[in-house]
């Protein structure tokens, strides 16, 4: 599955965490838009890539989800 993305493994996770830390709780769509914006439109992030990445972060306990919006966990924000 990792082979389908053009983004380095782990880079996407960092971008997501960075976004969530600066913006607070966000919807998945919001995260995607924000990442595209901050990269000045150089990156087109389709949801098929973002969605499993978000799930991975959630499984690892880095973020928590509440229905469709996500926010960073305490442990993660204090270490990052």
């Amino acid at each position, binding site marked *: 599955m990792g082979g389908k993305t053009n983004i380095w493994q782990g880079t996407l996770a960092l971008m997501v965490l960075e976004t969530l830390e600066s913006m607070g709780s966000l*919807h998945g*769509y919001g995260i995607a838009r924000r990442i595209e914006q901050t990269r000045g439109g150089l990156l087109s992030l389709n949801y098929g*890539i973002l*969605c499993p990445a978000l799930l991975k972060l959630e*499984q*690892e306990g880095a973020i928590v989800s509440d229905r469709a919006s996500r926010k960073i966990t305490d442990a993660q924000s204090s270490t990052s």
Partner: protein
Amino acid sequence: MRRLRALWIRICGTLGNKRESMELDEELESHLQMHIEDNVRSGMSEAEARRQALTHLGGLEQTREAYRERQRLPGLETLCQDVRFGLRMLLKSRGFTVVAVLTLGLGIGANTALFSVLNAVLLNPLPYPHAEELVTVHAAKQNFNEGSISYLNFRDWQRDNKALAALAVSRGTGYILTGTGASEEVRGELVSSDFFPLLGVKPVAGRLFASHEDEIGQEPVAMISSGFWKRKFGAQPDVIGNPLMLDGRDYTIVGVLPATFNLAISNFRASDVYVPIGQFQNPALNDRSAGLGIHGIARLRPGVTLKQAQADMERVSRNLETTFPAEDQGIHAKLVPFKESLVRDVRPLLLVLMGAVGFVLLIACVNVANLLLARANARAQEFAVRSALGASRARLLRQLLTESLTLSVLGGVLGLALAALGTRIIVKMLPENLPRETGIHIDWLVLCFTALISLASGILFGFAPALKMFKRDVQSTLRLGGRSIGSANNRTQDSLVVFQMALALVLLIGAGLMIRSMVKLSNIDPGFHSRGVLTFGLEAPPAMSGAGPDAIRAYLREAQRKIAMTPDIEAVCFSWAALPMMSDDEQSFWLEGEPKPGNQNAMRSSIRYLVGADYLRVMGIPLLKGRFLSEADDDRAPRVIVIDEVFAKKFFGNVDPIGKRIHLDQFDDAATVIGVVGHVNQWGIDNDAVNPLRAETYQALMQLPEQQLSLVAFGMDALARSKSGAIPSFKGIESSVTQMNHEQVVYNPEAMDDVVSETLSSRRFAMTLLAVFACTALVLAIIGMYGVISYIVGQRARDIGIRMALGANRGEVLRWVLRRGSRLALTGAACGFLAALVLSQVIAGSSLLYGVRPYDPWTFTGVTALMMAVALSACHVPARRATRIAPMKALRTE
């Protein structure tokens, strides 16, 4: 940690519910809506906005797929699916499953059980810190490779060596305990102070012996075992400092050893009480030439190798040889690693058995592989369809292997249950010389072993059918439409059966050789009649300790008379020194006319029995010439000696030995030979013939010098023969003895029959297990043979039908099937025969055989014939079935 957490959630996701997919759908939907709204806001038409959003999303189904793969573990999911499918298939054909699981269970169970023995005995590390540095120490001398060390030599070795961190000695003994409840015999060990510190043993109460406490003339102190502490003192901590009366002397208890301390090495056995070696009440303790049954243990200095240590001890021994030529000539220290001295006797036996049991598992695997092959033919259709629908070879192989692994895991579980049972049976059967039997149980290493062999066998028997499956052409299989492929050759199956037969024959020959050895051994005459003879220990009351020689002789006569009056006792005799197959002792001597040798080691030696007049009657040893010792041969009569036939032949040749005189070491007057008796197998039935020390002498107990006679009362052996031929009742003897004096004790009763059979116990153990394994192997191989022949008959039913329709008679069909079977059996037997020729050399190398050559023609031909007969009768059943095929029916079903 985070990875683990994610993995755990994914495993849960795989096994858990499907609720999440609803949430995903909702989220995707809202995501899409937001995107469309954004697009509309930026000026697109509704339709364009939707189209753009959908493109950007990158495919709904792919997203779902990616999400699902992340949510769960795809590999695990397929595995679960395959296992579930496999289990369903196994449930569908119950007969096959039961046979396969039972076969595997037997094979794996036998392996696990034996491995748990092997693990406890050979592999487990000894429970001592740096156990690899521990060695046992002996004195190598003329007749004893690992003889006992004299106390004075021990002190010199201890002082002069540079390679050992510590050297300690021990010697087993027995005491009468009085003043603490009823008087009883307790097992004791005399040890030097370094014994426990060297092993790293710490006391649970009190202290160990202090460094000079073990010297001669120190205050009597004692340590006790935890068991003894509990039994006698209720584990009271204030027992330290209390007196303990042993053999009428007061010892102060200074410490208690931990309950975990349970060492049994060379002559040392864990005991009730431990006393410093300097307390040994034997005047010969200060005699440099007297070994007295003392053996040592030592710890090498860190970094010193065994070879270096041995060389250093050699230097010390050589120095002593020059300083004390009379006593120490030819005496050398010998070091043997702990592990080696524990396992060297049983290692070959266990390895041979492990090999045998491995063969059994192989045969079991081959059997299951054969069953699977037959099934694979039946399932060819199923797999052809799957592969036509796009399943890759890897996927199919994976499923087949999952199925066979499921089988093997089931077999492994059953095997573990059987092993738990089998281990218990094996522990009961274990010969006494197998060390550390208490440690035999199923631990994690055994579990790993079971898991490993289960999986390995699963892969082993799973691969053959899987590979065969792929050789098939999908199209032609589909076209055949599920009918069996009669033309497919059975070469794989045939060679598997041949392989099985060969393995089984090897095992059968091995077992046959062992059984022949055992038969040979049981026909050997030990030289005495053990039936109806009981041996036991007797200790005089502590009051006798200071008595003079006349009082002791009077006591011995009285005790013998009292015991002889016990009902059903025909004869009683006391013995000191050696007893056949139980204890040994030697007598140094020189013949009359020879100059007196300069030292003890230059003298001739023989086994020494010190007995009473009734010894021949009790033991049933034949008198060949002259007379035996009599009651009249006592301290007032001239010194006499009786020799055995081996002695007579070795030292007197054809000359009549009666009247010849022998000078015995440590006696001033020469002894006159008065009689010749039959030879007794001192060293056990199987080892006597090869022992260098075989000449035997008998001396009268009553003619012992005063110094030694005083020791006799502290523990001698007694032998009693019953009138009826039954084992004499120990209870009866005990009551006769206590009637005479309640402070004297009898202990350790042992039927002579048991003693004799004990010397063969490890052979019997190996033989029984090998025979059981060989029979299992034979049964499995025969089942395999039967299965394959039945399968062939089933496949060739139409063929046979046509032949019969064309006029073949039943006899011809029968012969055809039998020829097929016997060809397999013969090929297998030929391979097995050759393999057995090679492998029986291994058994021969392990000294498990006795009186049988490793290529014993009788065993080889007999066993091969037996196996052929059994194999052919196994073929006969399907062959008969073939003759009953009705031609019309066979033709119609096709």
